[in-house]
């Protein structure tokens, strides 16, 4: 038994001359909630499709729970629930009938409990009242919920959720976050891809960042976000003087606004900053120490701008 739910080594996919996924080594620890980040077109979805044996890698290997994919797909995938690139169901069948069809296709599922499990999954995503409506009459949010329900028909050890909150209202987004939290609490490993940083920031224990087909950063979210660039902000009437004090202390990348001075702390202890400012006669109105937001980290890794990579 390995302690990695997902492991890829040198995973590569080329479509024609274009390298969409470039030698990535993904490591998703068992029991983690892994945020898989990257701009649109960075190769997240292609990677997920390779994990699930939908797309064959050009090079490299995939293991789920130590089992080689795609060779062991039939044995491992029953323990994996997946939401891949949006919901897809038969439009003229009801939500419930669609779930029954998915359950019928799963040879590891117990037919005698199908009705209970389908209704349980519908209930879990709040769709029970609309279960007998045709799928085509569902709103985008309802479709997304049905797809999540489809991934929860049997107990899963790994959930792969590709943009799970796409199309959901703030209420629905919060529910999905709570759902992921409760599943993770039960010991399910969750790999959630997203470009919505706020939602990932609140639920992930681990992060991986994709950029133009490469995995540019990976680790626990605490590690990644405290990479020696914790910021200290002094709110003051005289930001210029404060900036000078910060520079003397050894802070880097100092910038000022009309009412504050900010710099990267590096090795400097935060409490020294306040003492030094007071000592230098700078009036301190407020003081803040914070890790950079995930958005700052994301932008620093993938660059700004609106270009779709690739």
């Amino acid at each position, binding site marked *: 038994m390995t302690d990695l739910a997902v492991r890829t080594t040198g995973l590569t996919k080329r479509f024609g001359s274009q390298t969409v996924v470039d030698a990535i080594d993904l490591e998703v620890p068992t029991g983690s909630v892994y945020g898989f980040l990257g701009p649109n077109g960075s190769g997240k979805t292609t990677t997920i499709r390779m994990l699930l044996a939908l*797309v064959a890698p050009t090079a490299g290997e995939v293991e789920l729970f130590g089992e080689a994919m795609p060779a062991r797909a*039939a044995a491992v995938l029953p323990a994996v629930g997946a939401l891949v690139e949006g919901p897809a169901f038969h439009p003229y069948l009801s939500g419930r009938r669609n779930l029954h069809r998915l359950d019928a296709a799963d040879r590891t599922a117990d037919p005698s409990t199908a009705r209970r499990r389908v209704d349980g999954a519908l209930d879990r995503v709040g769709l029970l009242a609309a279960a007998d409506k045709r799928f085509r009459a569902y709103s985008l949010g309802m479709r997304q919920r049905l797809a999540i329900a489809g991934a929860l028909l049997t107990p899963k050890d790994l959930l792969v959720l590709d943009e799970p909150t796409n199309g959901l209202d703030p209420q629905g987004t919060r529910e999905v976050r709570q759902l992921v939290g409760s599943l993770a609490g039960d010991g399910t490993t969750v790999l959630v891809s997203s470009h919505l940083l706020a939602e990932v920031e609140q639920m992930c224990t681990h992060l991986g960042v994709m950029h133009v087909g490469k995995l540019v950063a990976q680790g626990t979210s605490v590690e990644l976000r405290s990479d020696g660039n914790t910021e200290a902000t002094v709110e003051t009437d005289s930001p210029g003087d404060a900036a000078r004090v910060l520079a003397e202390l050894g802070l880097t990348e100092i910038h000022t606004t009309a009412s504050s001075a900010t710099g990267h702390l590096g090795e400097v202890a935060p409490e020294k900053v306040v003492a030094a400012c007071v000592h230098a006669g700078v009036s301190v109105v407020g003081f803040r120490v914070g890790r950079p937001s995930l958005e700052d980290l994301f932008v620093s890794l993938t660059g700004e701008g609106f270009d779709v990579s690739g």
Partner: protein
Amino acid sequence: MSVVDAPSTTVVRAPRSTLSPRFLASELRLILGRRRNQAGLLVLAAVPVFISIAVKSTLSQPGQDAPDFFRSITGNGLFVALAALTIELGLFLPLAVSVVAGDSVAGEANIGTLRYLLVTPVTRLRLLLVKYVGVVVGAFFATFVVTLVGILMGLILFGGGPMTLLSGTQISFGAGLLRVVLAAAYLALGLSALGAVGLFASTLTEQPIAAMIATIMFSSTSFVLDSIPQVAWLHPYLLTHHWLDFGDLFRDPIAWNNIVAGLVLAASYAVVFFAAAWARFTTKDVTS
């Protein structure tokens, strides 16, 4: 393949049984539940109704230039079924099979449900098998709906009784009924082979309509080539070449030569095109 004990990880789950009819049942419900397919069945069933009423309302024997089975309808109602099958074999029945077969894989790819079936997981071979069995059941269902409606309408309007064969001898009503059922089964097998062509076409595209058109073109081209004497060398290899030989079942004794040749040809097409579908689908990147 040798059977190796699965490693003692917690996640590997064994199928509950090797043969699970649930997915096939779901597939059949899906095919038969579609409005489009139900409407198609109504059209198929309307043909024997139309034929029997048309013949009855002329109140006379069809002329001597009428096709074989038509001339016999007034003598025995069973011939309504055979006349209907003959007429529908040119377009309606192949079209029905093309629609179901062309939709089989491409339809799921088109709406995206294919990826969810595959990660459930359904192995690709199992998916193709279930889809093909669905097509075969559909071919039999369509053929037998035409046949049964034909028999019923024929018996109501023209009565049953002993059947006079094309060679002139008479057989009992029961023996005649059996031969009609055999003819329907023979045609359904030929249509099932066309279904394998459709299954293959369906793995080539994500557009079900394209696969349907390709399949119906395949059967229509076969009929056309079969009628061109200059390519006579090709005729024995055309899928549709022996279809109309089902009439040989109504000779005394039954002329089996062409029937057997037709069955061998159908089996060959089914095997070759199913294998082609598998070779194509098993290596295909599912990006829909």
